[in-house]
């Protein structure tokens, strides 16, 4: 299998790999760049930064997004911050330390070469964003401020209040706007990629739907870049935006791009708990809150009962009767353990019967100690917008009573398999940001998604794509009348017509919610063999029911939001099944993937490096065939994988 998956990690010392690689890959001259077309799908941090940078370089770029403006992409919702190894705090941070924390945080399931490169370019990102006018938080001396995030013992997270993702995206969007104004990039808002077009095995374009008119369009290019984000919405309830979906990646998978580690999904420990059946999404409370918030549940069952009956308030429970379980179990990192660890610990307490709300699925995040220590004003300055957001949703004032939180699906580490150049197994098809799998292993550290999206888009892809395009300078852009385009367009239309023709008795959301329940129950925070097998069976049954009994109103040739949803949910069924299959295959616990069969006596994850030190890359084999598994062995040359220890 090694022959199929060549990650192309450059040889040599860790800190020389990227420098050497950059020096030796081919570049395209300015005159030739003007002859080359690139399609970028998605306008989050990865897509916007890539499209702008590629446009500036002189390529002819088309960028597509499903929203009405590139600025709406879900990167905008990232709250807490972005990591970089600047060491501005003089706390002994370094590129190596950021690399090491990320590798360890990912539970040794990511590539050393990729992660080191990510840490290396992290500093350039901060410089770039400041130059663009991103108003990062500053100290009174006028220099940049930092905060701490989970899984790190240094303060390396740069932030713009609780809206860091928004500010970084507005920076990338501004760069994109400038490129659009200079006619280096053409934007296609309210357009959705529905299929990838291959000619002779190479990516040559896409089929897109104009979401306003419903028209199907063909776009050709010399290369296609997917920056279409993650697939957390397979769970229905997640912190992802409502329109976030996995379809661009999934359809590329069905055209031959391998899908790597689909079971690695991140469950974020601090989200507002589920309140009812009609809920449409879950709201994240930033990880930055764990800088000053302390997580606890009562020690006594009787206090739990009273809380659930609303007979007492949390603030009335004496200090000695509170179980600050993260501080108790993980003294070295305390409330700032990585997300997977914090999520499982919350589940453990709730499963033991200490959940603090009516559903039993909530723990407290308490700021009273910090307010006593620092005063309300300081806390308000740091987290004011998050506190306001919490109060608007729950009607509870978090300055007076602790927040209630519970884990929820947040991010997917898995994604399309890419090599060191960020190219998928389909030549000419690239995947960047959350859409690829490459940098976070089994668990992503907080404030690293923004870092990866911008690293890929600003500083990695614009270099590596030249190595492929250097071969294409003589090649004309593919003709959209080519039979491959015709065939792809027909398949897309057939599928839409099929969905519209069913006229069954249930709505798209009904099936999506059912799928979400199966996924959360069996492919969520804790997984086991029997449950995963059950999940696969149930997903198949549900998928069949969906295709027989869904009702999609309206016509294909119009603005039709139900049709958009239906096509995405149809893909989620297949993606969900692959997630379960991958989780079933990986009989070890690592990062966000917790197999109940594989845990230590005190409930910590038990990795199996002997058998599973590999990237699981799945190849599509047809609608009714099992996908094939290809293994990319992870070689740890520089770091010795050890048991993740956040206790001491």
């Amino acid at each position, binding site marked *: 299998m090694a022959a199929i998956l060549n990650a192309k990690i450059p040889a040599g010392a860790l800190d020389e790999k990227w420098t050497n690689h950059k020096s030796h890959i081919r570049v395209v001259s300015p005159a030739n760049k003007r002859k080359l077309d690139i399609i970028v799908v998605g306008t989050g941090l990865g897509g916007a*930064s890539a499209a702008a*940078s590629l446009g*500036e370089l002189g390529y002819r770029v088309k960028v597509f997004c499903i*929203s*009405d*403006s*590139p*600025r709406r*992409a*879900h990167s*905008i*919702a990232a709250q807490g911050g972005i990591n970089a190894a*600047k060491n501005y705090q003089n706390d002994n941070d370094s590129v190596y330390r950021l690399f090491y924390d990320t590798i360890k945080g990912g539970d040794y399931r990511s590539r050393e070469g990729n992660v080191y490169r990510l840490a290396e370019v992290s500093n350039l990102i*901060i*410089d*770039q964003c400041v130059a663009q*006018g991103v*108003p990062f938080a*500053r100290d*009174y001396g*006028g*220099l*940049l401020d930092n905060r701490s995030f989970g899984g790190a013992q240094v303060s390396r997270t740069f932030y713009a*209040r609780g*809206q860091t993702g*928004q*500010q970084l995206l*507005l920076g990338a969007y*501004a*760069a994109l*706007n*400038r490129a659009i*104004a200079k006619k280096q990039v053409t934007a296609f*808002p309210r357009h959705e990629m529905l299929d990838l077009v291959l000619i002779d095995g190479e990516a040559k374009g896409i089929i897109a739907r104009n979401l*306003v008119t419903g028209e199907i369009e063909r776009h050709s290019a010399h290369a296609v870049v997917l920056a279409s984000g993650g697939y957390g919405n397979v769970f229905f309830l997640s912190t992802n*935006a*409502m*329109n976030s979906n996995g379809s661009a990646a999934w359809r590329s998978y069905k055209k031959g791009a391998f899908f790597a580690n689909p079971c690695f999904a991140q469950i974020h420990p601090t989200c507002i708990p589920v*309140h*009812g059946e*009609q809920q449409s999404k879950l*709201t994240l409370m930033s990880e930055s809150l764990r800088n000053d918030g302390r997580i606890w549940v009562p020690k006594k069952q009787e206090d739990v009962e009273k809380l659930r009956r609303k007979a007492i308030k949390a603030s009335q429970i004496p200090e000695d009767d509170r179980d600050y379980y993260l501080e108790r179990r993980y003294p070295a990192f305390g409330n700032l353990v990585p997300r997977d660890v914090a999520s499982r610990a919350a589940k453990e307490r709730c499963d033991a019967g200490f959940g603090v709300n009516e559903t039993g699925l909530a723990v407290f995040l308490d700021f009273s100690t910090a307010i006593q220590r620092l005063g309300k004003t300081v806390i308000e300055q740091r987290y004011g917008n998050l506190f*306001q957001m919490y109060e*608007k*949703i729950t*009607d509870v004032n978090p300055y007076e009573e602790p927040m209630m939180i519970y884990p929820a699906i947040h991010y997917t580490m898995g994604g399309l398999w890419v090599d060191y150049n960020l190219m998928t197994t389909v030549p000419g098809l690239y995947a960047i940001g959350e859409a690829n799998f490459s940098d976070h292993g089994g668990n992503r550290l907080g404030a690293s998604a923004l870092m990866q999206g911008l690293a890929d888009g*600003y*500083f990695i892809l*614009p270099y590596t794509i030249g190595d492929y395009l250097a071969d294409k300078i003589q090649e004309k852009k593919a003709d959209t009348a080519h039979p491959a385009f015709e065939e792809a367009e027909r398949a897309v239309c057939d599928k839409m017509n099929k969905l519209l023709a069913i*006229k*069954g*008795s249930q*709505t798209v*959301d009904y099936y999506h919610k059912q799928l979400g329940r199966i996924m959360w129950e069996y492919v969520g925070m804790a997984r086991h063999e029997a449950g995963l097998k059950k999940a696969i069976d149930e997903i198949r049954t549900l998928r069949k029911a969906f295709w027989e*009994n869904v*009702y999609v*109103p309206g016509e294909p040739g119009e*603005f039709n*939001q*139900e049709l958009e949803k239906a096509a995405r949910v149809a893909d989620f069924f297949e993606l969900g099944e692959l997630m379960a299959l991958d989780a079933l295959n990986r009989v070890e616990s690592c990062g966000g993937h917790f197999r109940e069969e594989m845990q230590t006596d005190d409930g910590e994850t038990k990795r199996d490096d002997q058998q599973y030190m590999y990237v699981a890359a799945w190849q599509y084999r047809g609608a009714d065939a099992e996908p094939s598994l290809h293994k990319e062995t992870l070689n740890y040359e520089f770091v010795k994988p050890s048991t993740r220890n956040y206790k001491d």
Partner: protein
Amino acid sequence: MNFTLRIWRQVNANTKGNFETYTIENISSDTSFLEMLDILNDQLIRQGDEPVAVAKGCKGGDPVAFDHDCREGICGMCSLYINGRAHGPDDEVTTCQLHMRKFKDGDTITIEPWRSRGFPVIKDLVVDRSAFDKILQAGGFISVNTGGVPDANAIPIPKEKADESMDAAACVGCGACVATCKNGSAMLFVSARVSSLALLPQGKAEAARRAKAMVAKMDELGFGSCTNTQACEMECPKNISITHIARMNREFLLAKLKD
């Protein structure tokens, strides 16, 4: 809770629209406004305009089209004019952060799209805000390419300036200011961007040119002029202050004086 909903329905930009009335029942007070619309749409698809579903399947009423995405008040995708107010009766929230507990049981709620010459209706409650992108493309950026920039700490920026820049940068580009303004002016939106960049040393160099280009584009796209009613500030979900309009006017006048 039960509600009567009067909702603007319009097939597309080229047809005339009208209000339709719907009733919706058993809504929890913790439901968000957009979740309430989800429930209505579910009801419409299942039942159509009649109370009983036909034998085989849904009746297939036409669900109400509305824009939404993050549902946590940051993407700026949701809009809606609710009972005569942009983003509804609560202050400092976008529609997605509005909850039904802000209404009384039995209320009639009127829901309209943003109404402004700058934002034509696409369908029902969905409007075309691409004019905002065009204004920003006219100059809402700092002209730097990727790479080759100085170290992030090379230029200290006073905390007060950075904070004020951030206040302006909090704009989510939803368009409530335009929808609220009786003149359909985009001054608050435009000035927030101009001001945010002009406050920073990095953005100073182009400040005058930027203000001029963005104001010219705004006028060209048919947005009205500002007559200082301050309604935009009142309805801005992110509390963007009209002091930014004053700052932009300064930048604009300076630019004109230099001409």
